[in-house]
């Protein structure tokens, strides 16, 4: 049973405002694992192990499922209200798919609600084409006697061509669908689906329908389109906005893209959305660096070269032109006369304050750079992962041809690369998280977890980069050359070479299947490979465990409000 075929249990819900209007499911916003509690939301992870504290339930829906669900809802409401499905659909969209609120309001005031939504139930009032004698269209000023005209129930009449142009402009150019109004200035009557159908060309109608379809997901806080380019899936996740302070709702689309349901960015566990936002803003804002430069460097008044202040002494000498000046007032040092030890052109208090501000600014910058460098390092290493993956692919090939290991048995290398990457991403975000932590015993525990994962990751990385004893990657590649091939044209990839140079060479797929040169691998090599495999599996398992420990504990800590934050969660301004 999926979230989409929920049963009509809305009657059980007496508080309409609590009702989740988006997918027609009721949702407790208390963050407890209440799935399957009679609301039709089946536990998505039922076939997996027990859910970890940092994992959330979600479901991936295809476009067809989204359409099917809307159709079902529409049919249901049309049945209750006794109206056309098009009208029920327009009403539902107006009520953002909150079915019972719609039904309740509609029962009270059918005409009023229909009018607000731009629904014309009365067939008599439905927009009809008519040829009106002596009519001049107020928009194009045409008054042809046989011109087709159209008026919505507001009786604002225009020619059909103008309506067609108008709808084209709204749908194709402005991407509007459900709120297109009558062409008359200030008239709020909505152009209903049936009228749109009658007026526009098929391709515009198709665009209109797909826009309407998208509004279903866009209107719902519990549905999001996967942000991967051209991905057609939507993710359903029931997470309340206040829960975003406690967990990063990472979801995985069927296309493979992993992203945060809260903010749409790629997975950023364990750093919660709001801190990610502050952090990215800080990184984008180079004012930090600018501050430092202004606090620690000045320009020589004579030659304009930049001078960095590196001691406490105010007597500066320009390295370039040997000009001597005072750091505090920037005046020539000679003007200071006998008071050479102290600038008396500024009062002492001001000069001390200036130095204090400078010191503070420098300290803040150094703290930021500490976290930023580590954050950036993991990002950089993760970017190099494609290289590691290619190298690993070559190794895997070499392993298969050197040992008796089967294809499936050498997959551990690939798996290890994935684990490594995932953990680097996690580590990266631990540094942005740590930047916002205030220093206390708890922070020390967090940093222990961070350090353990960091070490585990570097060990695994080192092992994966290490050459495998007895397995010559280069010679393995070379063995693929047969006498029919011209060896001089074949670029031997020794594993360390650039993969791009390989791709310029004749395609490897055109070569005959691998024929290992070592048809009988020595027992020694075989042993060393088995040994390596065990080592990689062990280290990979350890990395996974450390990552789980870190993520679980961080999430747990967020729930228990164990982490002291040194940032104002509203403004993103750091406390002193």
């Amino acid at each position, binding site marked *: 049973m999926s979230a989409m075929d929920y049963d009509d249990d809305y009657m059980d819900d007496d508080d309409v405002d609590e009702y989740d209007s988006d997918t027609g499911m009721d949702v407790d916003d208390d963050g407890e694992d209440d799935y399957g509690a009679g609301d039709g939301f089946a536990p998505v992870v039922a076939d997996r192990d027990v859910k970890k504290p940092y994992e959330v339930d979600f479901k991936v829906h295809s476009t067809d499922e989204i359409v099917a669900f809307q159709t079902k809802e529409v049919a249901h409401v049309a049945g209750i209200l006794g109206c056309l499905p098009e009208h029920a659909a327009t009403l539902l969209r107006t009520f953002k798919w909150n079915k019972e609120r719609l039904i309740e309001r509609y029962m009270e005031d059918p005409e009023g609600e229909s009018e607000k939504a731009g629904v014309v139930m009365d067939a008599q009032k439905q927009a009809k084409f008519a040829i009106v004698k002596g009519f001049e269209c107020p*928009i*194009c*000023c045409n008054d042809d006697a046989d011109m087709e005209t159209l008026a919505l129930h507001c009786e604002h009449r225009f020619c059909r061509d103008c309506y067609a142009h108008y709808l084209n402009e709204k749908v194709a150019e402005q991407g509007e669908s459900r709120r297109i109004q009558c*062409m*008359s*200035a200030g008239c709020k009557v909505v152009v209903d689906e049936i009228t749109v159908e009658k007026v526009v060309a098929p391709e515009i109608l198709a665009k209109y329908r797909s826009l309407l379809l998208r509004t279903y997901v866009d209107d719902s806080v519990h549905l999001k389109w996967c942000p991967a380019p051209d991905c057609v899936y939507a993710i359903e996740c029931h997470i309340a906005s206040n829960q975003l302070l406690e967990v990063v709702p990472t979801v995985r689309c069927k296309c493979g893209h992993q992203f945060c349901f809260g903010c749409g960015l790629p997975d950023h566990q364990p750093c919660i959305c709001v801190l990610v936002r502050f952090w990215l803003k800080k990184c984008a804002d180079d004012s930090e660096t600018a501050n430092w430069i202004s606090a620690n460097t000045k320009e020589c008044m004579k030659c304009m070269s930049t001078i960095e202040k590196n001691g406490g002494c105010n007597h500066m000498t320009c390295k370039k032109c040997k000009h001597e000046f005072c750091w505090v007032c920037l005046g020539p040092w000679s003007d200071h006369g006998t008071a050479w030890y102290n600038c008396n052109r500024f009062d002492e208090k001001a000069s001390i304050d200036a130095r204090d501000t400078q010191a503070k600014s420098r300290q803040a910058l150094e703290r930021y750079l500490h976290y930023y460098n580590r954050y950036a390092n993991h990002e950089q290493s993760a970017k190099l992962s494609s290289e590691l993956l290619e190298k690993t692919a070559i190794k895997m090939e070499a392993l298969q041809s050197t040992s008796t290991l089967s294809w499936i048995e050498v997959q551990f290398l690939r798996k290890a690369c994935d684990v490594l990457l995932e953990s680097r991403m996690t580590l990266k975000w631990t540094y942005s998280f740590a930047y916002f932590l205030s220093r206390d015993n708890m922070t020390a525990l967090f940093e222990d977890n961070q350090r353990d994962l960091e070490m585990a990751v570097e060990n695994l990385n080192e092992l994966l980069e290490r050459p495998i004893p007895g397995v010559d990657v280069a010679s393995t590649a070379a063995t693929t050359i047969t006498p029919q091939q011209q060896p001089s044209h074949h670029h031997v990839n020794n594993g360390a070479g650039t993969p791009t140079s390989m791709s310029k060479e004749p395609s490897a797929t055109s070569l005959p299947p691998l024929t290992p040169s070592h048809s009988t691998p020595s027992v020694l090599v075989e042993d060393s490979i088995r040994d390596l495999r065990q080592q990689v599996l062990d280290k990979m398992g350890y990395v996974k465990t450390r990552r789980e420990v870190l993520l679980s504990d961080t999430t747990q800590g967020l729930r228990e409000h164990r982490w002291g934050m040194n940032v104002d969660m509203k403004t993103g301004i750091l406390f002193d």
Partner: protein
Amino acid sequence: MALPKRIIKETERLMAEPAPGISATPHDDNLRYFDVVISGPQQSPFEGGDFKLELFLPEEYPMAPPKVRFLTKIYHPNIDKLGRICLDILKDKWSPALQIRTVLLSIQALLSAPNPDDPLANDVAQHWKENEKDAIQTARNWTAQHAHA
């Protein structure tokens, strides 16, 4: 491309029965481009000034709004340094049933009733909110300096 009947009719009417305090004259060589002059409304800080504007009807007109811009410098919270105007009917509230005449009348009304809560020129809006009297005096000075016929 021939000028649409709508534009011909609108132009004829603008010339035959101009709105009070507003003149709009199309260029001979481009009938979609108008020289506009709006007189500063009475009892506004723009009183006594003649404000030049340019108005252009894009290809999609009237499905898309006309493009209008002040050419005369003006101190107004909804008009920026480049003369661009913040007016809802020139953007999302545009309806093809609106006309050049209605647009110019709306701009004239905007001169009578500046709206510092929906500003385009932030510094001017701030001035207007913090010290309306002083802002109005600045607007008067600008009118005398830049918009005198």
